């Protein structure tokens, strides 16, 4: 039996605001339990919700970025169910009329571009947290502790169409979505802190069947690696189940990283009737075209546009551009470096940003915004490569020095250490002659057809030049002398 996998993803994205969506409590991570929960967050009798403008603005920004329709009028609805981390025992969400409808997201799966459609995105409030450590009643019954600091944090729930057909596609989509919300500045993207969580809806069907199979929902996956594993496990589980004559049950599941499996969530077994109805405490949300225009005007250049621009005007490959534009800060850093170099040197800048800079940042566990070398400083160094003053290899040494002491200037180091490349043909010619004279055996091997001998001779010349000879010139002159 040939199976087709159908995957749709729901992302819960915590919006980067100072205060919560319906109360003025702080959203900062890590406070002592229940110290960032006021009467509204605790749902004390008499409390009422008031909507945070910034949360809406983030939603508008997202909608515009994915080319979606931003609803001029959307409604908040109550989703009614009992749960201890849901203080009102209803969640304020959006149901029939969400703030964003439609939209597309481009991503790369193994280098190939894919465009996925989104169904909708809506605003809602996050729930609190249950802590299952060792609490007990006086008579010894185990308890959970409820912390409402997270309760009321603004969420944007982003729903994709069920268009992914493999775990790889789903993960690529999730990564691209994550990169976009961070790029736009609407989410800090910190998955360990729960800022970006994915629910994966997975089903299988015989290839060619148009009807969807029964799907399961695996909730709250907070890493891309776990997402890939959870989806893969579900696919296998469902196929095995069906092939053994069983039926997939529509249910909610959790991914257990320790066991690398998904399992059914007992507490959510019963079918929920959420009894959605428009929240009478919140009149309709109106987003004027003036507001949308204002948000549009303040939008950063989108990754897609930047990628296109880099390919078209800087002549870089799509692979290079995909990597450079992974996040906005890196892309902006790269662009600053490239624009300080003469035309045609973009590839040099790209190689260094993706290579030396990335490696050094990684080693020191730093993000690009903490890079010791400013874009201007790096550009100065790269200029010395492009104008032939130093070789790439020497430049790496200079880079290392600048990295550990960023008050140092590239030229100063080159001067102080006498690293200038030797480009005087006469001088290089003399060295080439010296090596040819002193290595008759290797010369012989070269003349016999062994290419490796040539490289060895080049190495010898570079050694003589203490690495400072212009490699291109060494190659040319050596070839000239040998072939004449």
């Amino acid at each position, binding site marked *: 039996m040939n199976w087709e996998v159908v995957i749709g993803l729901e992302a819960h994205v915590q919006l980067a605001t100072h205060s919560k969506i319906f109360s003025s409590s702080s959203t900062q991570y890590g406070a002592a339990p229940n110290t960032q929960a006021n009467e509204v967050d*605790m749902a004390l009798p008499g409390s009422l919700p008031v909507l945070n403008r910034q949360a809406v603005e983030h939603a508008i920004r997202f909608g515009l970025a994915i080319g979606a329709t931003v609803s001029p009028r959307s409604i908040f609805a109550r989703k009614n169910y009992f749960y201890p981390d849901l203080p009102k025992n209803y969640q304020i969400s959006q149901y029939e009329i969400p703030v964003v409808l439609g939209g597309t997201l481009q991503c790369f799966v193994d280098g190939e571009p894919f465009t996925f459609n989104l169904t909708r995105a809506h605003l809602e409030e996050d729930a609190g947290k249950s802590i299952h450590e060792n609490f007990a009643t006086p008579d010894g019954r185990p308890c959970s502790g409820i912390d409402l600091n997270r309760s009321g944090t603004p969420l944007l729930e982003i729903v994709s169409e069920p268009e992914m057909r493999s775990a790889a596609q789903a993960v690529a989509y999730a990564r691209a979505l994550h990169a976009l919300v961070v790029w736009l500045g609407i989410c800090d993207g910190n998955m360990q802190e729960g800022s970006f969580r994915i629910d994966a809806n997975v089903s299988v069907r015989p290839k060619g069947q148009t009807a969807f199979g029964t799907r399961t929902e695996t909730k709250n996956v907070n890493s891309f690696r776990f997402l890939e594993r959870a989806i893969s496990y579900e696919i296998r589980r469902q196929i095995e189940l069906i092939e053994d004559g069983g039926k997939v049950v529509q249910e909610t599941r959790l991914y257990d990283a320790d066991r690398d499996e998904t399992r059914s969530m007992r507490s959510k077994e019963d079918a929920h009737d959420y009894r959605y109805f428009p929240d009478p405490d919140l009149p309709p949300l*109106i987003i004027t075209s003036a507001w949308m225009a204002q948000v549009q005007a303040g939008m950063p250049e989108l990754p897609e546009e930047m990628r296109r621009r880099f390919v078209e005007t800087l002549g870089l490959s799509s692979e290079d551009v995909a990597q450079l534009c992974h996040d906005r800060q890196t892309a902006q850093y790269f662009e600053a470096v490239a624009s300080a170099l003469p035309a045609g040197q973009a590839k040099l800048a790209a190689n260094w940003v993706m290579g030396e800079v990335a490696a050094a940042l990684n080693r020191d566990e730093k993000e690009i915004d903490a890079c010791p070398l400013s874009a201007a400083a790096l550009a100065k160094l790269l200029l010395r490569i492009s104008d032939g003053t130093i070789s790439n290899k020497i430049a790496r040494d200079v880079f290392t020095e600048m990295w550990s002491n960023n008050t140092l200037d590239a030229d100063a180091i080159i001067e102080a250490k006498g690293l200038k490349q030797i480009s005087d043909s006469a001088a290089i010619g003399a060295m080439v002659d010296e090596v040819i004279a002193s290595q008759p055996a290797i010369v012989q091997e070269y003349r016999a057809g062994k290419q490796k001998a040539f490289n060895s001779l080049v190495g010898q010349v570079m050694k003589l030049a203490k690495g400072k000879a212009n490699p291109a010139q060494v190659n040319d002159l050596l070839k000239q002398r040998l072939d004449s």
Partner: protein
Amino acid sequence: MALTETDVAFVAKLARLHITPEQQPALKHELNQVMGLIEQLQSIDTKGVEPLAHPLSVLHDIELRLREDSSLPTNTIAQRNHLMQNAPADADGLFLVPRVIE
């Protein structure tokens, strides 16, 4: 639509209310009396009439007013205790409930 005892049990579950089997029949009867009163609404022709949510929207559109994104300072422990003073059970600043196993 007359409620059955299954309906009553289901609604009680959704509403987190505890109805004993003994209470069922009387409650069912009462609820059906209420539904009888409410049934009148079914026969009213409301084609083309929009539901009225906020009463003043019959005057003019009522829009949701937005709040600026400024946050309150984190509460001190004393302030937290003041807000949590009615907690039936708490420890270390957390509300305690019987353990929920997921």
